[in-house]
Structure formats: C-alpha cells, structure tokens
C-alpha cells in the first residue's frame, strides 16, 4: 500500500471535535522511538496501533500491566471448587447411593470433571475478560477516522496522542509529532 491510497489529512477539525493527533510510521523502530520520546515529553493519554503485537510497546507507552492473569487464576480456583462441590453434593448429600462399594465421597473419581470445569471457567474468563476490557465489540472508534488507518492492520504503525492528555496542545503536540519523522501527522476527528 503506497501513500497514493491515503486520503489527505484533515486539517480543519474544530477543537471540540478533535480526538487527538495521530502520527503514522512505516517502521516499528520509528514508532518505538516516538513512543519513548512522547513519554519523556510527559504525554500520558496516548496509544499506539500496530498490525502485530510489538514486544515492550506497552511499557514504552506507560501502560500498566494487565490484571488478566490474576482474574483467570481466581476463575480457575472458583471453577475447581464449583466442579468438585457439584459432584460431592450430588453423591454425598443429594442422592447417596452405594456404587461398587465405593465411599460416597470417592474423590479420585471426581478429579476429571473438576479439572474440566476448572479449564472451562478459566479459559472463558481469559477470553471474555480480554474482549470485554478491550471494549469489544465496539461499533465505532474515533481512531478509524485517521487517514490511511486501514494500513494499521497491514504494515503501518500509528501513535495517537489524545486531546484528553493534560499536556495536549494542538500546535505544540503537532510540532512534537512532526519532529519524530513520521510519514504524516493527521488530526483525528472524534
């Protein structure tokens, strides 16, 4: 995809309609350098958009580590307890029945189902928590208004500094981003 496909950057977005300023890079190293510079310059409300996961980019942008792992651990423990309880309840309290002379709480027999329910609950927690916390499904996001943003899923890298940042200043931020040698800087309409 070459630049000829890209729409010209919109430059007359009123302040109230402005979501942020987006710089487009064609090399991941340039994006990483820009992210470092933006963080050093004190910007916080920003995000980068890349076609594939870039290792360490979240740290460069100052994104806190996700809590997903802990949530999944809790879900797994809850799953294990629920799975075992279901079988224990059915066999010991609800309908005690002598099967082959086994004790009512014949726990080794309950391990497989306990394990499967642990897996089921923790896997779906991991998947659904990721989707939910990422705000998906989402029908509209302002970043898609950035010119040539469709290349962000192909081979371009975007850094967007948002207007809600305390340091955001339309002219100063524009200058800052242009100093990072992007392909272009464009205004993103909300």
């Amino acid at each position, binding site marked *: *995809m070459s630049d000829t496909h890209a729409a010209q950057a919109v430059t007359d977005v009123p302040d109230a309609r402005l979501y942020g300023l987006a710089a487009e890079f064609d090399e*991941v190293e340039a994006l990483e350098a820009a992210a470092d510079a933006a963080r050093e310059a004190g910007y916080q409300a920003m*995000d*980068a*958009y*890349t*076609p*594939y*996961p*870039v290792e360490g*980019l*979240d740290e460069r942008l100052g*994104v806190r580590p*996700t809590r*997903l*792992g802990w949530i*999944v651990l809790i879900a797994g423990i809850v799953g294990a307890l629920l799975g075992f309880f*279901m*079988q224990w309840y*059915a*066999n010991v309290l*609800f*309908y005690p029945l002598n*099967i082959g002379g*086994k004790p009512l709480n*014949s726990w080794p*027999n*309950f391990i*497989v*189902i306990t*394990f*499967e*329910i642990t*897996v*089921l609950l*923790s*896997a*779906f927690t*991991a*998947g659904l*928590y*990721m*989707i939910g*916390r*990422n*705000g*998906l*499904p*989402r*029908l*509209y*996001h302002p*970043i*898609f208004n950035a010119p040539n943003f*469709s*290349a*962000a*899923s*192909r*081979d371009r890298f975007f850094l967007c500094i948002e207007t809600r940042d305390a340091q955001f200043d339309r002219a100063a931020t524009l200058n800052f981003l242009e100093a990072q040698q992007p392909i272009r800087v464009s205004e993103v309409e909300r």
Partner: protein
Amino acid sequence: MTVRTGNVSETQRVIGRGQTSGKIDDVVNTPVLVGPAKTPLWWWIGLMISLGFLSMYLISIVVLITTGTGVWGNNIPVAWGMPIINFVWWIGIGHAGTLISAALLLFRQPWRTSINRFAEAMTIFAVVNAGLYPILHLGRPWVFYWLLPYPNTHGLFPQFRSPLDWDLFAIGTYASVSVLFWYIGLIPDLATLRDRSNSKFQQFLYAILSLGWNGSARAWQRYQRAYLLLAAISFPLVLSVHSTIAMDFAVSQLPGWNNTVMPPYFVAGAVFAGFAMVLILAIPLRKAFGLEKLITMRHLDNSAKLMLATGMIVVYGYLVELFDAWYSGVEFERFMAYNRVLGADHWWAFWLLIACNFVAIQPLWLRSVRQNPMALFIISIIVSIGMWLERFVIISITLTKDFLPSSWGDYVTTFWDWALYLGTFGLFATLFLLFIRLLPSIATAEMKELVHHDAHHVSDPFEQIRLDHYGKEARP
C-alpha cells in the same frame, strides 16, 4: 561433524526469504477476498463432492434415528463397534491442532505460526464429527442432555463416577475451548480482512466478526496475555481429553482394556494421527494457494519428525500391551493377546496395523523422505488408516472374545456403518473448504511478528546455535 550447506539450510527456514508484512497479507488474504466469480474451479468441485458425502451423512442419521441402532452392525457382545472406533479416531485427529497451537507456542517454536490456524480449524471440525458419534450411539440421541447435570423432574444427577460422563465434560470443554482459542486468534486477522475488503458485504461481515478490533497497544497487551494463558490452559486440556477417552477403556475390567498404559499411549496415538492429518491437509493447501514460502519444507519436516516420534511411542504401546498380557499371568489377558495377534478372525487387522503404523513410518528417518511432499502425503494416509485399525483392534477383538466362550460373538459391519463414516468426511471437508474460502488459513498477524523478528534476529534458536558455532559462511 560436517557443516551442512547449500539448500539444506534453505529448507530449514521457518518462512521463505524476502517476505514482508504486505506480501503476507496479499498471499494469504487474496484468495479469501476475491469475488465468487474468481473462486477456483477445484474449490467448487471439492465442495460439490463434499456436499455429496454430507448428504450421505444426513441420510444415514435420518435412517439411524427413524429405524434405530439396529441398522448398525454393533450388537451384543460388540456393543461399541464402528461408532466408538470412529469417535476415537476423529477426536484423536483433532489433538494435533491444539498441540500445535498451544504446546508449541509455550515451547516457543516459531515454526508453528503458519500452520496453527488451519490445524485449529481441523481440530474443531474433527471434534464436531467425534462429538456427534457418542450422541448418535446413545440410541435415543434426543435425550443426550440427560448426561448433563441440570435440575430435572427425575430428581437425578448423572453418574459422575463413570468415565462415560467424564467424556462428556472433557469433550464439551475441549470443543468449546478450542472454538474460543481459534476465534481469539482470528480477531486481529478478521480486522485485517475488514480493512482490505473489496465490497460492502465483505466489509460488513468482517467488521462484525472482528468486533471492532483496532490493534492498540493496550488491546494487544491483554490479547497476548489472554492468548498465552489460553495456550497454557489448553495444553493440559488436550492431554486430559484423550486420557479420559482412554479411561473409558482402562477403567473397565475387560482383557486388553484394563491397562494403565492406555492414557499416555492413547495421547501419543492421537498426536500421531493428528500430525498425519495436518500433513494430509497442508500439502495440498500450500500447493493450491501458493503458500510454499509460508508453509515451508521445515514445517513438513518437523511434522514428519513428530509423527515418527509419536508413532514409535505408539509402537512401544503395542509391545507393552502384549508384555503386560503375558506378565499379568491372567488367562483371559493372555488369550486376548493371542487372539489379537494370531486369532483366526482378526489376525489380519493386527498385522495390517503393524504394517501401517510401524513399517510405513520407518522411511521418515530419512531427510529426503521428510522433505518429499508426495511421500509424506502417502505415508500420512497410510498412518490414518493404521490409526483406524488400531481402534478397531482394541475395541472389537476384546469384545468378540472376552471371558466365557458361550458369550463370544462376531462383529460384522453394515452398509449404514460405512455410510455414516464416509459421511463424516463430507461434513469435515465441507467445513474445511468453507473455512479456507472465507477465513485466512494462516495467522497473518503472527506471521508479521515473525517477519519482523526474522529480519532483525535469526528466527530459529537452533539456527542461532549453528551460526554461533560455524559463523555466517555456513549459510548460502
């Protein structure tokens, strides 16, 4: 030790030379995004044949349900027969997909990346086929939900101590977690398809399916953690599923089944059959879509090595079964072993099994065979037949002659047994053809990460070791 040079290290590459993110997109997504008029002819022909077999599948199910399980050959004493043989066969095939996507991710094997997507699809479609078999085998498939623990007017719970109920939980969890894992992996690629769409319909379809993914660093952070955890969760899951199926046999007291070797040996057999199916699908797929630079000789070679390794574990399992039968000193076990190897009825099945699963894989020790797609394709088909025979031998030979000669009997399959079995191929092939037409058969986001990594580092730890030892001149 000599340094291997020339085309050897070229075939070691995980991806061909000169790939870029854009090129990967084009080669993988173009066949998906072209309009119906440009769909290749072989795809339509394949779909027509698959739909033919799928109709046979549906007719077989209608006949089965309207008439009853008497249309099948299984009866006392062989109550399990073809439905369970085919169930175990199909679910085993599924295992390679999860192993590639989960285990090889955890082991940081970069070569998994270009084959994991379609291998996961293969898993799901195989599990669909497998999961329907025990339900149809119930005799009254419409009350299959009695196996689930739900509040009911019978005032009963299912028998949680029975491996048959463990099966339900294992396969149910496996099917749903596989679909989840596959879909999560697809989300960024669906977003790529959305951005490359040629028509409003495609754009709408892929936009909805991709849930509005925008590839932000925050999203990728959670995505990667979730994906890694799903892999870590799926790995023991896949081991548990076939172990549970093995326990359907091992927990019973029948000669030849009641054996502690069953779970690990079944898991190895599942991976063995699964890699055979991966090769059966990958070899035509890379040819048809021109994916030779993404699914390289390295993938075929490694899959063949895994097939050889797990195949030899399975052969060891056969030997242990026979040794155990002798060492147990139990008359019935010893008779079963004799009957399996030399018995008048089914000796051919055992020896054919040895020919398929032991003799046929021996050429895989040779590099030239592992890097010959035609040879691999043929060996993989032989292995698939061998793995079917393995389940046939385990199930029918034990059941035809167990303890009392007065209750011995024979097992003869019927037309509807085979019609249903061949029909499952129709379902599998239909789903697979639709998958390669509508969804990217290679995980493009992961491939782009690999391209980036490959451009800056050596993509393969083993290649790195070789470079450290022999220097650059070892490469052409």
